[in-house]
């Protein structure tokens, strides 16, 4: 006690020191972030969805060749991180596989923001079952498999989906993600929408899977586990499943047709989806005979106003590039381009972005 009494008064000077250091460092950070970029060159930083990362990297690389003075960094980290970073104005744009939950949208600093759909991709139901080359699954059967109601491959429900096929009695090993993921969110969202009476685990970036299932890290981890397990089945994004040479099941769509995952089927699903005013849409379980029902959307988030007009100009150029050449590049990295109507709407929305030197008085006018 006496020791504390002696120390505490001698500490009073510490308070201003700590406060001043704090202010100086945070002030410096703000100043650095707001520094205007010179002569048309700009750096755009983004983070978020890992699903769209390979596409973004491809487009950024091609864009950079045409616009060498614009640097774009996209660091991944997950949709949730992207939305959080965007809300906190840590990044200039973000990638997300799901729109903001209603409660979080109000907390976005930096004013009005826009959703830019960029591409879409199928989520495959990949499997490894020796002797079986073709597999068809209805949403109800899928739900039962993934929540552990069906334990073997010769279950009557699977047989009913595959008339005439020879199915072994191998045990089913379900493989899901060990990390939380937009892929899990869209896959469980599909089961929720397409098998509402059967699927009980709900939908989200992580659900409470039965404990006897296997978990893999990332799409490659899930794919790898399926590949090494006879009887394995799991959900894997298209490009990773293709790279691992996995077999895909055809999934029954809303029109009752069994459709194998493909980029055409994905674009078809997106074109049938109801697009909202803000360009968010839900392509899961879309109608249409050729639509592949488990389709993952993805968006880039951008503010309507940037205090640095060089940034705004660069971002507009980049987004326009995505809706031009970018759509052609999509299939080279296994993403489906948007249907032309949606791409047109998105391109029109790019015009809303502006660099304002007037609205926020604190920022220096950029040259």
């Amino acid at each position: 006690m006496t020791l504390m009494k002696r120390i505490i008064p001698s500490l009073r000077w510490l308070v201003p020191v700590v406060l001043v250091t704090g202010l100086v460092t945070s002030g410096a950070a703000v100043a650095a972030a707001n520094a205007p970029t010179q002569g048309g060159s700009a750096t755009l930083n983004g983070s978020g969805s890992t699903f769209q990362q390979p596409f973004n990297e491809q487009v950024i690389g091609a864009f950079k060749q045409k616009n060498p003075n614009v640097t774009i960094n996209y660091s991944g980290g997950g949709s949730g991180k992207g939305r959080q970073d965007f809300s906190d104005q840590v990044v200039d744009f973000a990638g997300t596989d799901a729109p903001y939950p209603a409660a979080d949208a109000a907390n976005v600093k930096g004013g009005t923001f826009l959703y830019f759909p960029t591409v879409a991709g199928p989520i495959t139901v990949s499997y490894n079952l020796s002797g079986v080359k073709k597999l068809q699954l209805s949403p109800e059967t899928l739900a039962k498999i993934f929540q552990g109601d069906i334990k073997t491959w010769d279950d009557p429900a699977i047989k009913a989906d595959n008339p005439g096929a020879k199915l072994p009695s191998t045990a089913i090993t379900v493989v899901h993600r060990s990390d939380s993921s937009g892929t899990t969110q869209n896959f469980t969202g599909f089961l929720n929408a397409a098998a509402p009476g059967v699927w009980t685990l709900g939908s989200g970036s992580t659900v409470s899977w039965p404990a006897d299932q296997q978990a893999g890290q990332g799409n490659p981890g899930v794919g790898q586990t399926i590949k090494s397990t006879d009887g394995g089945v799991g959900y894997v994004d298209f490009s990773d499943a293709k790279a691992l040479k996995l077999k895909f099941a055809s999934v029954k769509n809303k029109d009752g047709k069994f459709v194998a995952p493909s980029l055409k089927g994905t674009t078809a699903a997106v074109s049938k989806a109801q697009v909202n005013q803000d360009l968010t849409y839900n392509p899961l379980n879309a109608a249409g005979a050729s639509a592949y029902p488990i389709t993952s959307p993805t968006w880039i988030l951008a503010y309507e106003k940037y205090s640095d007009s060089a940034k705004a100009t660069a971002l507009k150029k980049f987004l326009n590039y995505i809706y031009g050449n970018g759509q052609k590049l999509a299939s080279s990295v296994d993403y489906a381009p948007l249907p032309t109507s949606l791409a047109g709407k998105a391109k029109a929305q790019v015009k809303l972005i502006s660099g304002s030197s007037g609205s926020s008085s604190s920022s220096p006018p950029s040259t």
Partner: protein
Amino acid sequence: MATEAPALPASLTKGRRPAGLIADRGFRVVALLAGLTVLVILALIAIYTTREAWPWFRTEGLGIFSDNWDPAHQQFGAGGLIYGTLLVAGVAVLFSLPISVGIALFVTDVAPERIRRPIVYTVDLLAAIPSVVYGLWALFVLAEPLSSLFQSLSDATASIPILKTLFANPSASGKSFMTAGIIVAIMITPIITSITREVFATVPQSQKEAALALGATRWEMIRGAVFPHSRSGMVAGTMIGLGRAMGETIAIALVIGSSPRITANIFGPGDTLASIIANQFGEASGEHRAALIGCGVVLFALTILISMAARAVVSRADRRSAGTG
């Protein structure tokens, strides 16, 4: 000196050598600052994380200790995670402690002089390997043989009462509490070894020689002279190892199987406070995010509690042995 205090009031300096006093004051301030930095950082972490996690504490209340972690249904009970954290850390210390003490004794009291250095270097080298490398090694090399070992252990003990539940339902991929515990045991071995080794080295040579002169064997000498002298140091080393084990993240996230639950099946998948943060933070928002940050707060509190309990145990034991001896 940049840290010199400005001129002191005359009343203080009167009758003393000013130069020495100023240097003394300066040193005191520097040392105090260094000491306080730790407290300030700890306090800032605690305040920030608690504030961010507040929505979770508020909505769940005591429900944070339930074992139902189900983000899809907005259920965030960390009971299974706390259990997993303690279990993995416990298993790790259980495996690591005898090995570490053994290595330390071997190096200080048994090994010939010329091979001591190489052994110490090798053990210290283990500490320099990044934890993600341990995790990947466990995932790709260790998990598969372990899963068949778990399966055969489980089959062999199927009729023995307690072991039957303990070893039931082994994970087919080898991702389990046990696998995580083993890999963490390897990771904390260098820490416990190096601390216990330092402590053993402080045992006075005269006491060891006295024990040997009384006719004690080497083991009796270690038990009678080395251990009593080093007890609190060994506990301290174990505590640091335990803290590291409880905070270990990536290696565990890779091999524990990500299935938060309370179960006696130590060969089955589970999850820990730290690993679930690594696995789920990237996609979390709203209460899910608050709950994950809250897991950090819970882990923080848990570590402090355990280290305080250990200290209490040691000081009581020391007092008792001092009283009787």
